[in-house]
């Protein structure tokens, strides 16, 4: 990674966008990746729709689910999204301390989200509600579990970007800013999926 300047000439558009597509490589790549993630969660939503309309009876979701915790989690994730934007803005303005502060807030809020999720799961298990208890619960655990895995992945990436990843900033500032922007897109997407998960699995 130490020959960024050479790699910039070798492989163009790592940092600066190409004129006709308007994107640098990583940004295009992350949007493509998000498109595939839409299809992944989409298949699970499709399974939900199919199983629910094809079933004779479906539990009243808001009775089983802990809606207040779900709502709080939504706000938690949304707030972390705002923090992410502030972090990116701070990095663009060369304020590294503020960037690190906001990024750590993002990671903290992600942990809060996971802990609240853990509390919810524990509540379900102690009521004897496991994935195999019903199709709805199976879907709930799988979809939120997959989402939680994505959050964990995001936490790892964000930690990298305030830890070892800071080296990139000293090599080429714009490169680092781009990377943070791209990771931010991923994080916003995770938040977006949660909005749909919450609406579908808790409220419908």
């Amino acid at each position, binding site marked *: 990674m130490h020959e960024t300047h050479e790699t910039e000439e070798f492989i163009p558009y790592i940092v600066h966008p190409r004129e006709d*597509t*308007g*994107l640098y490589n990583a940004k*295009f790549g992350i*949007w*493509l990746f998000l*498109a595939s993630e*839409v*299809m992944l969660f*989409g*298949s699970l*939503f*499709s399974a939900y*729709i*199919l199983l629910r*309309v*094809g*079933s*004779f009876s479906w539990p009243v979701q*808001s009775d089983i689910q802990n*809606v207040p915790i779900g*709502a709080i989690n*939504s*706000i938690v994730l*949304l*707030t972390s*999204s*705002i923090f992410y*934007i*502030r972090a990116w*803005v*701070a990095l*663009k*303005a060369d*304020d590294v301390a*503020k960037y690190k502060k906001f990024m750590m807030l993002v990671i903290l809020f992600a942990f809060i989200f996971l802990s609240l999720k853990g509390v919810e799961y524990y509540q379900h298990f102690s009521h004897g509600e496991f994935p195999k208890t019903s199709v709805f619960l199976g879907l709930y655990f799988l979809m939120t579990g997959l989402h939680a895995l994505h959050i964990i992945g995001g936490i790892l990436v964000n930690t990298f970007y305030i830890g070892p990843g800071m080296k990139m900033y000293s090599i080429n500032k714009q490169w680092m800013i781009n990377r943070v922007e791209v990771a931010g*897109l991923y994080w*916003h*997407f995770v*938040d*977006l999926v949660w*909005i*749909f998960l919450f*609406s579908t699995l*808790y*409220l*419908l």
Partner: protein
Amino acid sequence: MEHHSEHQPDELKRDILIYITIILLLGVILLISHLQLHILGIFLIVPIACIEAGILGFYFMHLMTKKRTVHLLLLLTVVVFVTLLFWPAWDIVYSPRTPSEFTTY
């Protein structure tokens, strides 16, 4: 959040406004869910969730500043996604094999 960058003083205000809007919409769908409107509830909650997601994507993910390439990609994805979402369920509902409360024959 007091020492925000000089370059984006308006963006912060705008971001906070978006944040509050999304939370308000969240409150709306919570209310709708509480009213137990069943089918009508579905037709209200899903579009509002889509609007929430749209606002998030538009402003936080800078979708409005993206070029045509990303817009086309997303359009393609949405079309394929909607197909995946509804066609299999259509099969189950309108088929002669599974008696479900929606089949009419």
